[in-house]
């Protein structure tokens, strides 16, 4: 009997200690916690690390501090899977008590996390996922996007294909998930608006290793179509481009892609297969501005590899957040003020001038780029530029 009471007492002491010790020591001058979600496994793994490297580069440039407060960067792997992203987001918000949630590459993950973030009233700064609805039908004062919307550059690309490349018929191939369909829709919209025709749309599943069955279909269209539009991300893009060449399509049916396909992250694995391929992009490493040259130099110095659009995405995303924090003198707890400040941030990013539109999605210039070889290295160079593209951009006919 005594033993039972002893047990109860010890257990209660332990639990109470755990419980109240768990309450946290939330006081002033506590660090600003930025929770960060990205995939480090799977199709987007390389993109995930690029994004984080860019983000951290900026944080380091400012010494990990803003207005005298430390910035704490808490990083979690969402594996590119919506269910995992949701679980990790909960962990960041509830266990780590982050002030801001940032990152996210996969649109699927972004959609899954959206309701939760709004319910918990956490500022959500998306530094990559283009999930269109999040800054359109499903927008919220808490959701910001510093990267692009799935359809933004694609709208410009569709127009460019018709107006400047002279394409009239296009066949489309994209990854079968939210982003693939949304980007395809963007390209299709302006291309058809200008009078072009989409001959067929094929969407292989995300994570397809073997594009053979689909590429064989494309072979039928050689000579009947002007261009292949393609969007694949991460490792899918590497395989796609390589196999595109293997099946002899590269010369016979030119590609015009979304930037993810021939991003700097992929070029070392694609090499010859990507040479000469043109794409439209929010960021081009070859862009000749002072800020970009400085950024590329610093990035190469620190990380020993070339920054791609994800790297710039992370960097610019971090800068948006920090500029807003500076404007409110680090008082992230005053959420209203922080959100207001964030809305009005504008600066010169490596990709050019950036700012938010009314729905809190970023506006930027769109590049047309091509893969070139110089001194044995493959990089994108600028071919053309379309200024001030926002998520609702339409060409003037």
């Amino acid at each position, binding site marked *: 009997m005594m033993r039972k009471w002893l047990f109860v007492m010890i257990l209660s002491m332990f639990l109470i200690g755990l419980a109240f010790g768990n309450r946290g020591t939330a006081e002033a001058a506590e660090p600003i916690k930025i929770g960060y979600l990205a995939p480090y*496994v799977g199709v987007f*793994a390389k993109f995930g690390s690029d994004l984080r490297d860019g983000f951290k580069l900026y944080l380091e440039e400012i010494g990990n501090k803003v207005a005298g407060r430390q910035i704490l960067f808490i990083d979690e792997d969402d594996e590119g899977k919506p269910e995992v992203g949701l679980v990790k987001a909960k962990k960041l918000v509830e266990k780590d008590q982050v002030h801001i949630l940032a990152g996210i590459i996969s649109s699927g993950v972004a959609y899954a996390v959206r309701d939760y973030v709004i319910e918990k009233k956490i500022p959500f700064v998306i530094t990559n996922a283009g999930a269109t609805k999040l800054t359109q039908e499903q927008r919220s004062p808490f959701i910001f996007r510093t990267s692009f919307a799935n359809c933004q550059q694609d709208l410009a690309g569709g127009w460019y294909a018709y107006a400047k490349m002279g394409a009239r018929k296009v066949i489309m191939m994209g990854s079968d998930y939210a982003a693939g369909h949304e980007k395809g829709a963007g390209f299709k919209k302006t291309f058809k608006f200008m009078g072009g025709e989409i001959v067929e749309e*094929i969407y292989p599943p995300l994570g397809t290793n073997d594009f*053979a069955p689909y590429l*064989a279909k494309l072979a039928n269209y050689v000579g009947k179509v002007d261009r292949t539009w393609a969007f694949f991300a991460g490792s899918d893009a590497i*395989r796609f481009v390589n196999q595109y060449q293997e099946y002899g399509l590269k010369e016979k049916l030119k590609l015009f892609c979304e930037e993810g396909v021939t991003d700097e992250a992929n070029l070392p694995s694609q090499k010859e297969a990507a040479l000469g391929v043109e794409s439209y992009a929010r960021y081009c490493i070859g862009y000749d501005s002072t800020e970009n040259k400085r950024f590329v130099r610093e990035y190469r110095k620190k990380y020993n590899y070339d920054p791609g659009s994800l790297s710039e995405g992370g960097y610019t995303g971090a800068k948006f957040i920090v500029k807003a924090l500076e404007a409110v003198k680090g008082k992230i707890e005053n959420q209203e003020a922080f959100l207001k400040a964030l809305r009005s941030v504008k600066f010169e990013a490596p990709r050019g001038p950036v700012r938010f539109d009314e729905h809190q999605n970023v506006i930027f210039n769109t590049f047309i780029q091509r893969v070139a070889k110089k001194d044995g290295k493959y990089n994108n160079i600028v071919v053309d530029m379309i200024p001030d593209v926002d998520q609702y951009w339409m060409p003037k006919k």
Partner: protein
Amino acid sequence: MAFWIIQTLNGLSFSMMLFLVAAGFTLIFGLMKIINIAHGSFYLLSAYIGLTVLRATENFLLATIASSIAVVLVGIAMQSLFLRRFYMKELQQVLLTFGFVLIIADLCLWIWGGNPMALPKPSLFRGSIWIGNVVFPSYRLFVILVGVIIAVGLWIFQEKTKFGAIVRAGVDDEEMLRGSGINIQMVFVGVFGLGALLAGIGGMIGGPFVGVFPGVDMSMLLLALVVVIIGGVGSLKGAFLGSLFVGLTDNFGKALFPELSLFTLFAPMAIVLAIRPTGIFGKIEE
């Protein structure tokens, strides 16, 4: 016309790689009644090890030998040190293999990272050849060749050698085999090692076009599962035909009905399950 040729060849190359993985799986299941969930892990491990050796030596054959040895050792260790303790306890064995899946997967993630990679092809087969007016990668023809050679080799092994006869007997009736005085544990270890070897070779062969990445272990397992259910458990012939069926169906399914590609894989399996649960060439239970 060229379209059909290419698709058929594509399907065949995929089938051959599948066969390598499924053959080992079906033998292990047929003889030891173990659902080796870790079978895909053999593929994974072999492809990664092969990749590292390949990067160091640029010799595909050497890489294949190295990764095969590694995987066989792992397989033998799994069977002789762990699985045999649960002899006749199928559920425990299955769960044990699942544990291995997690360990191997995490180990590979830790060593090689999360980024999907593709093995470079052997230098001999880097180019593409002309078929009609279409181009086809020569490597895939190589895969078909390898698959057929190994299939023939396995057939000879099963039909003409003593060990093969023992395995066939064991799949048919294990109790009799034990009764005949043969060291059953050695047989088990041998078959498990053989299964691992086949899956390992599959990993090297498939590496260049399927690639290697976290998760490929489970995708390979799933495909092997479908092949074995359709083709029949314990039967190499079933595994071969099942692989042909699955590989070609998957390929044509993707090409002709991209929306339904996974469905074209599972529907036949469900049908076979409904009509003949042990598969087309499997043994009738009890």
